[in-house]
């Protein structure tokens, strides 16, 4: 038996198919979830994928956060369900207050698309255990609203508790405070990041490396060994 990992499709989601593929490449079973359904089809984990849910109207992720599927995701995430938010998914997780802080437009006001070097800062979460702490990886980054902001107290707390999961290296592509690319909740089951690991799981495409695959093998191992 393998793990079943749900991928939510909102109106405006772009990377649901790529995310399903990445889950399959890692050896798990992807399960398509629909934004209007409260039912999570008894999946073992959920990925909120990239895109522009509801056109990014109001704020990126602000309307998706109130969709029926998110009622269930929020409840179950608080009860320990592993949830990964990629890009727009990260924005939805901050809007839902499952992760602290917020996401705003890139400081240079332009869309950015590049292969981004990151450092794995926390390899103890449900989604990062197949990395080594301190490991440097290359993951494609593509976003408009990638600037992570939080008040000083929240930043200090994240740093002190080791909850910065990924940090931008060499350059800060969007003005994120403390070069933060991704964070985790205190329990380590909810992780969000701006770069797109699902685009880096096969050598043929993207960066030519498979640096994103450990996200999906990490969660698979956790669920299968559970």
């Amino acid at each position, binding site marked *: 038996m393998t793990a079943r990992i749900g991928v939510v499709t909102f109106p405006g989601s772009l990377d649901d198919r790529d995310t399903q593929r990445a889950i399959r490449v890692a050896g798990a079973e992807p399960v398509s979830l629909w934004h209007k359904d409260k039912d999570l089809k008894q999946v073992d984990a959920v990925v909120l994928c990239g895109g522009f849910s509801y056109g990014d109207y*109001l*704020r990126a992720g*602000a309307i998706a956060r*109130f969709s029926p599927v998110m009622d269930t995701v929020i409840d179950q995430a608080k009860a320990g369900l592993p949830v990964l938010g990629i890009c727009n998914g990260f924005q939805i997780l*901050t*809007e839902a*207050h499952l992760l*602290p*802080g*917020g996401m*705003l*437009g*890139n*400081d*240079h*006001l332009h869309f950015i698309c590049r292969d981004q070097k990151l450092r794995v800062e926390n390899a103890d979460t449900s989604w990062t255990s197949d990395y080594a702490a301190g490991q440097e990886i290359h993951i494609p980054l593509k976003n408009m609203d990638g*600037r992570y*902001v*939080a*008040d000083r107290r929240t930043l200090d707390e994240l740093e002190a508790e080791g909850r910065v999961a990924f940090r931008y290296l060499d350059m800060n592509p969007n*003005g994120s405070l403390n070069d933060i690319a991704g964070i985790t909740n205190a329990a380590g089951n909810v992780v969000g990041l701006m770069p797109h690991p699902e685009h880096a799981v096969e050598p043929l495409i993207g960066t030519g490396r498979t640096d994103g695959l450990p996200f999906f093998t990490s969660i698979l191992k956790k669920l299968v060994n559970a």
Partner: protein
Amino acid sequence: MARVVVDVMLKPEILDPQGQAVQRALPRLGFEGISDVRQGKRFELEVDGPVDDAALARIHDLAESFLANTVIEDFTVKVESDDVVAGAVK
């Protein structure tokens, strides 16, 4: 029918690159003496029925939970009568 206006602004300590871009364009357009611009959002809500305390309390909740993200934004709620709106247009 009354109009309630919700203004949403980024918290003062948060960088507003859009406002800065606007501010930097001003001297080029011949507007001198404006040292800072911050850009926000304005929501105009047309309310059916009276805007009493209960209605305002509900709009406050709406602004706090949805129209603004209070992690990064502040908001104000104010009632505008039709007269005031018409006056502002002139």
